C-alpha cells in the first residue's frame, strides 16, 4: 500500500473541506473494498477522509412512508434493524446475505452504493424500491444514480449522507451467490410499491439494470407464472469463468420467479 494522509472528519462540513483541500482525496467508510484495493495498489489516494466519527451518518429511521438509512450504517445493523424487519424485511434480509459476518460488521451501505460493484447486492434494492440517494449537495433518484460499471452520478468529493427507501407493499430479493466470494452471480430484487412493480437485476451484466419485460408481465398478474416463457437477452450479459452469459440469463428468470413467489408468500 502506498503512503497517504489520514483524517478523521468530525462533521460533514469538515469532511467536505478536507476532501476539497486534498490532491486526490477519498472518503473511507468501512474500508472493506477500499482498503483491499489500496493493498493491491489498484487505488492510491493521497488522503483518506474517514467518516466513522460522524454519528449522525449511522442509523435507521422512518419518515412517513419512507425508511431512511444513514450512509455509515453497517450491513449488520441493517440486517438487525427491527424497524426494517417490520417495514422492508427484504432489505434487512439482503444485508444479512452480503459477504460474511466480518464483512457485514465493517462494511456500510454508503460504501457499497458508492462503489457500485456490478455484482453487489444493495444496488438491486435501490433500483427496485425506487430509492433516493441524498448527498451533502442534492438528492439523486436511484434510476439516475448507477451509471455504469463502478460508475455513479456522484461528483468528485460528493458524499452520500443517507438513502431513502419508500416502503413497498411487498418485496423480495433472491440471489445465486458465487460460492467463493458470495457476491451475486445473479441477484434479482422484485418490489411492488408506490412506483408500481419493479424488477432489478444485479450480477448479470456490467451494472444493475431493470428487467422491464418482467415488470410489465408482473403488473398484469403478480405471480411467478406470469414470467413463464420470459427471458432476458444473453447477448447483453457477462460471461466469465464462473458462469456463461446464457447461464446468467437463465438464472435471471429463475431468481425472478423465486423472488415473486417469496414476496407473495407462495
Amino acid at each position, binding site marked *: *500500500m*502506498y*503512503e*497517504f*494522509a*489520514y483524517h*478523521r472528519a468530525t462533521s460533514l462540513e469538515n469532511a467536505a473541506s478536507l476532501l476539497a483541500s486534498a490532491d486526490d482525496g477519498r472518503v*473511507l467508510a468501512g*474500508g*472493506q473494498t477500499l*482498503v*483491499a484495493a*489500496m*493493498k493491491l495498489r489498484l487505488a492510491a489516494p493521497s488522503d*483518506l477522509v*474517514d467518516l*466513522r466519527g460522524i454519528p449522525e451518518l449511522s442509523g435507521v429511521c422512518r419518515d412517513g412512508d419512507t425508511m431512511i438509512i444513514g450512509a455509515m450504517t453497517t450491513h*449488520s445493523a441493517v440486517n438487525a434493524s427491527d424497524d426494517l424487519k417490520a417495514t422492508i424485511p427484504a432489505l434487512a434480509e439482503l444485508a444479512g446475505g452480503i*459477504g*460474511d*459476518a*466480518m*464483512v457485514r*460488521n*465493517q462494511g456500510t451501505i454508503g460504501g457499497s452504493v458508492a462503489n457500485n460493484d456490478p455484482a453487489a447486492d444493495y444496488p438491486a434494492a435501490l433500483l427496485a424500491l425506487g430509492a433516493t440517494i441524498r448527498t451533502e449537495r442534492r438528492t439523486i433518484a436511484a434510476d439516475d444514480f448507477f451509471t455504469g460499471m463502478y460508475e455513479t452520478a456522484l461528483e468528485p468529493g460528493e458524499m452520500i449522507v443517507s438513502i431513502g427507501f419508500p416502503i413497498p407493499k411487498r418485496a423480495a430479493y433472491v440471489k445465486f451467490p458465487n460460492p467463493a466470494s*458470495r457476491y451475486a452471480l445473479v441477484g434479482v430484487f422484485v418490489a411492488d410499491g408506490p412506483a408500481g412493480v419493479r424488477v432489478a437485476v444485479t450480477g448479470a451484466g456490467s451494472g444493475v439494470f431493470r428487467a422491464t419485460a418482467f415488470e410489465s408481465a408482473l403488473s398484469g398478474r403478480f405471480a411467478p407464472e406470469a414470467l413463464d416463457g420470459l427471458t432476458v437477452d444473453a447477448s447483453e450479459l457477462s460471461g466469465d469463468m464462473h458462469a456463461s452469459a446464457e447461464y446468467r440469463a437463465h438464472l435471471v428468470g429463475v431468481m425472478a420467479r423465486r423472488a415473486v413467489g417469496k414476496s407473495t408468500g407462495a
Partner: protein
Amino acid sequence: MSVTLSLEVNGKPVSLEVAPRTLLVDLLRDSLRLTGTHIGCDTAQCGACTVHLDGRAVKSCNVLAVQTAGAKVTTIEGIGSDAALHPMQAAFRDHHGLQCGYCTPGMVMSALDLVARHPAPSRDEIREALDGNICRCTGYHNIVTAIEAGAKAMKA
C-alpha cells in the same frame, strides 16, 4: 509520516506512533507482539485474522490501524490464559475442533461474536456464522460441535 494512535487492546490503553497505512493485524502482531492473531490470506478471505472491534468480529487484515482510534480491540490473547482457557477455547480442545490450529484464533473470535448475539445457536446458524472463516484441516464438523458445546458452557 506517522500519526499518534490511541486505543484499548485487551482492556489496556495503548498509545503509539504508526504510519496510516499500517494494517490492524500488523499493529497487533508486529508492534504489540500479539501473534495469536494469524495472517492466512491477507486478502479478507480466510478469517484467520479475526479480532473484535468494539465487540464485533472483523478481519484485521482489511482494517487500517488508524480506523480503530478510540476503539476497543480484543484479540485471542484477551479472552483467556494458558492457565484458564475461555470456555470456548476449552470446547475446541475437548471436541477436537482443531488440527494444525492455524484457523483456530479466528474461529474462536467469530464464535464469540455469534454467541454474544445468539446464546444458543443452532448447528445451521453456526455454519452460517463461519462463512468467513476457512479451515483447511478439520472439515468443520468438529468446529461446529465445539462451538455448540462452548456456547452451552458459557451459559453454565
